[in-house]
């Protein structure tokens, strides 16, 4: 089971978390991750602008959620990602994973986040202290993705 939501409007994290996987009786472990627009140290962050590639985003997210579901036998999997202009403190996105045991739920959630960070077609622009700049991709996010690659025999 995979659900993908891409929207400009805020989402209700509490309600989503509460309803997620609630109908499955074989779930033993649920992990959620939520990304929040944070105020940068000493800066006056007024907004985060998120651009995306509409015709690609849902397809890409559906495929990766399906891949995670297959790899870790997930019983449920949810990705919600906003775009548009968000203020500090607003929730940008969430993933949720449900599995029989905790190791699978944690690994799948981390995999989805590593993927979203550097392979899902979103671009963030920070508006702080009157200036706007595109967020640079971090080398450590590329590194993080590498740990999920199959090891050569």
């Amino acid at each position, binding site marked *: 089971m995979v659900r993908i939501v891409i929207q400009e409007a805020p989402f209700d994290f509490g309600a989503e978390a509460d309803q997620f996987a609630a109908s499955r009786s074989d779930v033993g472990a649920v992990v959620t991750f939520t990304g929040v627009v944070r105020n940068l140290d000493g800066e006056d962050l007024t907004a985060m602008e998120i*651009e995306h*590639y509409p015709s*690609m985003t849902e*397809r*890409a997210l559906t495929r990766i959620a399906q891949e995670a579901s297959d790899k870790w036998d997930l019983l449920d999997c949810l990705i919600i990602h906003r775009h548009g202009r968000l203020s500090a403190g607003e929730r940008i*996105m969430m993933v949720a994973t449900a599995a029989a045991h905790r190791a699978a739920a944690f690994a799948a959630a981390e995999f989805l986040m590593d993927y979203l960070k550097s392979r*899902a077609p*979103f*671009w963030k622009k920070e508006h702080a202290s009157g200036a706007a700049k595109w967020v640079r991709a971090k080398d450590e996010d590329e590194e993080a993705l590498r740990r999920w690659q199959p090891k050569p025999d």
Partner: protein
Amino acid sequence: MIDVLYFAWVRERIGIPKERIETDATTVAGLVEELRAREERYALAFADTTALRVALDQELSHFDAPIKGVREVAFFPPMTGG
């Protein structure tokens, strides 16, 4: 005819989100060469393709890939989702 899309600072440098162009190029790299030759804003946007990513028909690809039969090419900086 091929649709070419630009996102994030690539879109800002070129000044438009999308255009439909006629091309003789057979690969992404060939298309980039044609675009660079057009105007300075293209030359600037495509100055360093290692800083860019490309998608062909909504699938991540690479600059050596052929574009025969492709309907939509998108250029953008490394993604920063999550």
